[in-house]
C-alpha cells in the first residue's frame, strides 16, 4: 500500500520535472548564452537539493517498478514481496549513499 503511494507520488514528480527538463534543454537550440544562463540556476544550492530529491524519486520509482514486474512474473517474488520491499529501500539507500556526498560537494563545496 505505501509503496503504491510512493510509486504514484514519485511518478508524478518525475513527469513534471521531465516537461521542464526538455524545455530547458531545448534552449541549446536558442543560443549557448541562453542555455548556460538557465542551466546555471540548476547549480544553486536550492536546485542542488531539488536535484537530490529528484534523483531519490527516480531511484525509488525505478527499483519499485522492477519489484512490481518481478512480483507479477514470478511466484517466488510474490511469496517474498515483503523482503523485496526491503530490498528496494536497501538498494535505494546504498545508491543514495554513493550519490549524495559527491553531489552535495559539487553543489556546496565548489568542487
Amino acid at each position: 500500500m505505501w509503496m503504491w503511494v510512493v510509486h504514484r507520488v514519485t511518478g508524478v514528480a518525475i513527469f513534471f520535472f521531465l516537461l521542464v527538463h526538455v524545455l530547458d534543454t531545448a534552449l541549446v537550440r536558442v543560443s549557448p548564452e541562453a542555455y548556460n544562463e538557465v542551466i546555471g540556476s540548476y547549480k544553486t544550492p536550492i536546485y542542488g537539493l531539488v536535484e537530490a530529491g529528484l534523483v531519490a524519486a527516480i531511484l525509488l520509482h525505478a527499483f519499485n517498478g522492477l519489484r512490481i514486474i518481478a512480483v507479477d512474473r514470478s511466484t517466488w517474488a510474490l511469496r517474498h514481496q515483503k523482503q523485496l520491499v526491503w530490498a528496494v529501500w536497501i538498494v535505494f539507500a546504498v545508491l543514495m549513499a554513493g550519490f549524495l556526498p559527491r553531489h552535495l560537494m559539487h553543489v556546496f563545496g565548489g568542487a
Partner: protein
Amino acid sequence: MTASSPEFVPGPKIKEPRIRSGRVRPGAEQWSWRFMRISGPILVILILTHLFINLMTGDGVNQIDFAFVAGKLASPLWQVWDLTMLVLAMLHGGNGMRLLINDYAHTPWLNKLLHGALGVAVIGIIVLGSLVIFTFDPCPAGADPSLLPSFCKDLA
C-alpha cells in the same frame, strides 16, 4: 500457471474502456500494461546511465553547460540515447498520468480536459525534443568561441 503456458494472458483483467460510439477498444488496457512493463526496465538503464554520466563523472552538475551538452549531442550514440529516452519516458510518464486521471478525475468534462491537456503536453514535448536533437548545431556560427566545445576550433 507459468508465463509460458499458451492460455496465459498477462495483465490484470480490467474492464475495457469505452470509446464514444459505445464500442470497446479490445485489449487497449492490456497493451498499455505491456508497454509499461517493457519501457520501464529500458528506462531504468537509459536514465540511470544518463544521471551517472551527467552528475557523478567529472565535475558533476557543475560541468553541465552548452559545451558539455554540445559535445555529447555531437555523437550519434548520445543522439539515439537521448531520443529513445525522450520518447519512452514521455510515453511511459504520459500513460501513467492517464491512469491517474482516470482514477481521480471522475467529472466527465474535467476528465476530458485533463486528457486533452496531457495529450498536447506529451506530443508537444516529444516533437520539440526530437526537433532539438535532429537540428542541433554544436558549433553555431557567430557564437562566442569560449562557450563552444573545443572541437569547434578545428572546424573553423
